[in-house]
């Protein structure tokens, strides 16, 4: 009688204590491990607002390198021109990569501040698009790049809705979600992303955040840094230097 009671008590203790611990071990985010491993790369991107001249060579190069549809509403990276007028109105337009930008829309004297803001996928450390994907097609690699598996993507557009930065689009040819990959095929061969490669003013930099001597580490040490929408707790890895408070 006693042995059966002991057995049952032991069984329940085991289930109550070891079950949750084993479960927790199963579900602990692998991200934390990847981030702490010293030798692992953890890629980040830097943009100097004060250096950008809005020539949109990056947009063109990205479309060439990654076969992004040429229509001017499919972008993996794009450049916005912010015009903050004296009456307080903020005018935001994407720069046309095929023709020179002008000042025709707003006369010079109505402008208080204006500047260019290059944008791309922020490759968030805590990406909302990965959380919402119902089929697990969007995921984060060990080096911190958010990729889309086009083979399993069903094109439901949840991730496009979930991205607070508007960085995703539905590729009209493959009918799957598409976005910046930090040119994953290039960086795995130690080449720079195409947009960084062609930027004429070095407004874009790219590198390993874990390295003590990478261009990104220096970028973050030498500049006043801000990220887009920090309040959403997405922990973006695209860092902006000299970003204006009006930029959304």
């Amino acid at each position, binding site marked *: 009688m006693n042995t059966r009671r002991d057995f049952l008590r032991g069984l329940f203790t085991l289930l109550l204590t070891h079950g949750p611990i084993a479960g927790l071990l199963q579900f602990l985010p692998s991200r934390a491990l990847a981030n702490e491993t010293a030798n692992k790369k953890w890629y980040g991107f830097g943009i100097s607002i*004060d*250096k*950008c*001249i*809005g*020539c*949109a*060579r990056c947009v063109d*190069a990205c479309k*060439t*390198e*990654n076969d992004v549809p040429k229509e001017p509403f499919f972008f993996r990276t794009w450049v916005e*021109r*912010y*015009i903050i007028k004296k009456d307080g109105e903020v005018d935001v337009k994407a720069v046309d990569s095929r*023709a*020179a*930008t*002008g*000042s025709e829309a707003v006369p*010079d*004297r109505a*402008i208080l501040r*204006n*500047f*260019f803001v290059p944008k791309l996928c922020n490759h968030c450390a805590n990406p909302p698009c990965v959380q919402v994907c119902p089929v*697990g097609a969007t*995921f984060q*690699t060990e080096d911190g790049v958010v*990729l*889309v*598996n*086009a*083979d*399993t993507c069903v094109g439901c557009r949840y991730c496009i809705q979930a991205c607070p930065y508007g960085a995703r689009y539905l590729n009209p040819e493959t009918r799957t979600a598409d976005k910046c*990959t930090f040119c*994953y*095929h*290039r960086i*795995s*061969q130690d*080449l*720079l992303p*195409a947009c960084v*490669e*062609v*930027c*004429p*003013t*070095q407004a874009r930099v790219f590198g390993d955040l874990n390295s003590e001597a990478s261009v990104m580490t220096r970028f973050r040490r030498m500049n006043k840094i801000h990220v887009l929408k920090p309040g959403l707790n997405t922990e973006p890895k695209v860092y902006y230097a000299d970003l204006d408070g009006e930029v959304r």
Partner: protein
Amino acid sequence: MRDLAKDLPDALVRLLVVVAVMGCVGTLVFMLIPKSLKDVRIQRADAIKREQAKPVKFAGAHACADCHDQLYAKKNAGFHRDLSCETCHGASKAHTEDPAGVKPVIPKERQFCVLCHAYNPARPRGFPQINPAVHNPLKPCASCHNPHDPKPPTAPKECSACHGEIARMKAVSHHVALECTTCHQTPQQHKLTPRTVKPSKPQVRAFCGQCHAKGTGQPNGLAAKHLPKVDMATHGEKYVCWQCHYPHSPEVE
């Protein structure tokens, strides 16, 4: 054995058959469906491999130097030193693999240079900009400027040789018609020892008032309506003019 089967109730036998069939089908399905369709980790590893296998189209900043070393060295000594060759010549990985068969583009038309160099107020101050409508219209840029070593066609002899950023800023401002010496008295010695002998700077409000005070005339016959006039006694009397108006690029209503 036969007796045992006979002894069992019919319902139980049928149930056992159903269970056995389900087990078989389940095992078959489990074995037939490949692991890559079930394990998300395999799918992701495959996706990473596919991503890495995509073709590279931009060869990179240093690839061109292998053959075009002189042109590369020339570019790296000039103002276009920070540009990658492929910024202007486009994706050229194919050219590095088949130099004779695939030629990179050579943008010769004006529309290409003005992508960077047309005047746009959003561009950083001092970045070299022109107004394409009035800067030698219809003439290809390369007829005066060598794109591998871009310079003004005549070397600047005066202030802009050193103070190029200010000169370029002034060139697209309201003060474009003023000489530097209108406001700065520059001794000849400044050109030889620029740090010991310095040009003068205006010190008082009255200096700007020579042109901008109410009741003063029109210097050099400039159009009157474009020259702003203020009452020096009441307009910002607490400050000197250049605390609000930057003289090299004055912003005025």
